[in-house]
């Protein structure tokens, strides 16, 4: 029963969504089912948010209670959760500071703390790519050398100074890189990977729907 019911549910859900793709939403019930089911998924997902909040509070609270190493940071995590969530939940009619609209506490915390922190983390990629390139781009063999040369040409092509350098070598070199590397080799490889990944995803979806693959349930 513990195995059969989820497998039946997976089959029926997948089959219904598959059918809905082939039916006209304007004239048939099956066609209208797809957006309806997607809305149900969003609603169920909303309820599961509670699971995440409980998990994060439990893990961090136990560290704060025991005053384990780094407990101050765990306390900051808990304070941040409540500082953003509580003012956002209260109705706007109580005060313009509540809710999630412009001028609210939530909006201020998002724009002046959360957003800059997100941008900073993303900006760190520039440093990490430099150290990864420095460490990993070694001409160990023919393939690695080809990768190195291609990466160098594309990096030069993507910036004005590099483009000027390439044009100095040969006036049409940037266009040749665009045509033969980006619109040639790159496009072919991307198409191959996309097709392969899509087939893999379709095969896995079919196996899950038919109950052949049940490892995601822990079986």
């Amino acid at each position, binding site marked *: 029963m513990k195995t*059969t019911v989820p497998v039946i549910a997976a*089959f029926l859900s997948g*089959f219904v969504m*598959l059918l809905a*793709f*082939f*039916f*006209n939403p*304007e*004239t*048939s019930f*099956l*066609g209208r089912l797809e957006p309806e089911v997607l809305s149900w998924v969003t609603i169920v*997902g909303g309820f*599961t*948010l*509670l*699971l*995440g*909040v409980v*998990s*994060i509070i439990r*893990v961090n609270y136990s560290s704060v209670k025991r005053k384990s*190493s*780094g407990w101050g940071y765990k306390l900051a995590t808990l304070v941040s959760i409540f500082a953003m969530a509580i003012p956002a939940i209260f109705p706007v009619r109580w005060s313009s500071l509540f809710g999630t609209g412009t001028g609210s506490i939530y909006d201020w915390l998002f724009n002046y703390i959360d957003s800059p*922190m*997100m941008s900073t*983390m*993303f900006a760190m*990629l520039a440093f*990490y790519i430099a*150290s*990864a*390139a420095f460490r*990993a*781009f070694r001409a160990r063999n023919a393939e690695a050398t080809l990768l190195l040369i291609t990466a160098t040409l594309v990096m030069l092509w993507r910036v004005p100074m590099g483009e000027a350098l390439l044009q100095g070598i040969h006036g049409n070199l940037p266009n040749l890189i665009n045509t033969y590397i980006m619109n040639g080799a790159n496009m072919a490889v*991307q198409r191959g*990977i*996309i*097709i*392969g*990944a899509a*087939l*893999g*995803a379709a*095969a*896995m*979806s*079919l*196996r899950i*729907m*038919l*109950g*052949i*693959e*049940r*490892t*995601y*349930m*822990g079986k």
Partner: protein
Amino acid sequence: MAFSTGSGRLPFIFLILIILIMPVLSFAQADSGDTANSYFRIERINALVAMILFSVVILIYTRWAKAGKDLFIRKINGLDEVEEAVGRATEMGKPVLFVPGLQEIDEIETIAGISILGRVARITARYETPLLVPVRYPMVLAAGQEVVQQAYIEEGKADSYNKDIVRYVAGEQFAFTATVNGFMMRERPATNIYMGAFFAESLLLAETGNAAGSIQIAGTAQPAQLPFFIAACDYTLMGEELYAASAYLSREPLLLGGLKGQDWMKVLIIILILLGIILVSAEVSDWYLSMFESV
């Protein structure tokens, strides 16, 4: 039982339903010439044919595999190294970090990641190696906890299971990344396994893991992130190798059969592409290209 993997009746029930229902309902139109008012979207018939063909090929190979036919699968280095990598963590007394991607449970990459997590959890349960699985979404948390708990029970180590092995850390991409990076720099896990959908944070995770001295195995079907994992990780599974991982690690005939069927579909696509090239070059391709018009 109809829904067990053993009998295999379910796949054929599915195929019969598809083959019967679609054409029958395609005749149930308000006006046979008026496709806008029809129930069945006849313009999507090409997708239906492709789906039926795909299903038939997969099911045939699954049947052959079940009948005992020997199916070859090529070596995937990253997956072969998983057990050794966990062994390394056990010897060093350090934890294993497993990240099942940063997408929701309804994405197929996450399901593939959770499937691999089950296998990894069995190994860590067997060797009693600490395991940490940070997740970004609550539904992935629920699925992950179920899978890990089941793995520990199957290894007879139910007492070693701790609910906080799989923990929700943050819903925002970079908050999640910062938390995981912090864990890596503090705990210095011996092995990092990234299996699932990753985005801009892929290099942040992989480089931090590299700085922490961890052995890293990654797998994703996001083409944009593959170069970063290849540069920073010891082993990388590319695209469909991630989806093949479950079949590869378990070596279950049914799963391997599905994999072979998928490969034959790729051969068919290659043949169709080559045929298209010839027909387009000969300028007699209009009928052929119209078969593939996307809807």
